[in-house]
């Protein structure tokens, strides 16, 4: 499965949750599949989805699901120790590990070679780290929500992108409706 197929499958789970979504095609796909005010789309700033989600989870009690990418985690690796030492129970970091920089044309990342993100998350101090194959994402995400524990979920899947339109919504509109969903 590729990222967009996973997102389609888990859209009914994501719909009722606060979601912080990775830059580029991941956000475009989520936006096209099931746009919700409770989705925060990153339009730039590669790497910071996991950090934004962590700040959000620490600041309020609702569950936060971050949809991140392997390339973005690799560019902000310092995030893993911060998560490992601080993440509250309402934090779920789901890394769509397609082994590539999908948005920029599927150039391979090191997770397609020897690098193991789940192992890195564990070494960084993350207590609940789960690695699943693409088709098992839905149940694993439900389990993470029910676990009452911060979770890093690494989803191994194929490289590839659906062709979706760019997001033209104003960033302040994205942010404002998201904040209203947070405080609702």
């Amino acid at each position, binding site marked *: 499965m590729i990222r967009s197929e996973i997102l389609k499958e888990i859209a009914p789970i994501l719909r009722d949750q606060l979601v912080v979504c990775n830059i580029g095609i991941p956000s475009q796909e989520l936006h096209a599949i099931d746009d919700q005010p409770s989705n925060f789309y990153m339009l730039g*700033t590669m790497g*910071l989805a996991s*950090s934004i989600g962590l*700040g959000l989870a620490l600041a309020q009690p609702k569950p936060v699901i971050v949809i991140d990418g392997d390339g973005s985690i690799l560019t902000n690796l310092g995030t893993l120790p911060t998560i490992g030492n601080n993440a509250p129970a309402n934090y779920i970091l789901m890394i769509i590990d397609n082994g590539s920089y999908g948005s920029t044309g599927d150039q391979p990342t090191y997770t397609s070679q020897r690098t193991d993100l789940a192992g890195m998350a564990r070494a960084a101090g993350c207590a609940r780290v789960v690695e699943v194959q693409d088709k098992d994402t839905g149940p694993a995400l439900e389990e993470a929500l029910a676990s009452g524990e911060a979770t890093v979920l690494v989803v191994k899947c194929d490289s590839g992108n659906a062709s979706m339109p760019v997001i033209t919504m104003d960033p302040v509109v994205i942010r404002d409706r998201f904040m209203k969903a*947070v405080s609702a």
Partner: protein
Amino acid sequence: MNIDKRIADDLAANGVSFVTTVPCKQLAGVIQEIEGRDDIFHIPSNKEDEGMGLCAGAWMGGKRPAIIMQNTAIGVTINTLATLIQYYRMPLPMLISYRGELREPVACQVEMAVHTKALLAQLNIPTYHFHWQRDVEELDNILKYTFMCNKPVAILTDANFWGGYGDQ
């Protein structure tokens, strides 16, 4: 006056309850003060752009954030300031040690000091420079201004403000 406590008191009085830091020698005292307080949650970050991401999330979650960092971090965070904090219009007070200014003992620090104000000006970031200890009296107004306008705001604090380096 205990300058570290004064800064933390002003942050707390303005509702700032989420602070991330990357250390600088000049900031050691204020970081220690913040770590020890019950009214401010302190989360160290590993890099300043990461810290700004934490602050962005905390603000959307209803908390007032601040970042404490060295001026060299302006070089690390330009993309984040432009594409996250400014693009989504978020408030972010940045208490910055202004290394490489008067009374600096480490020559390398001057190399980013000479770019610091120019970079902040290029980004249209409101910038204040604390040189004398009494300049801290402006902090309360700067914090109110930051959360009024939803912008990143820089407070540069040089070695003279912090009382210099021993014999320097």
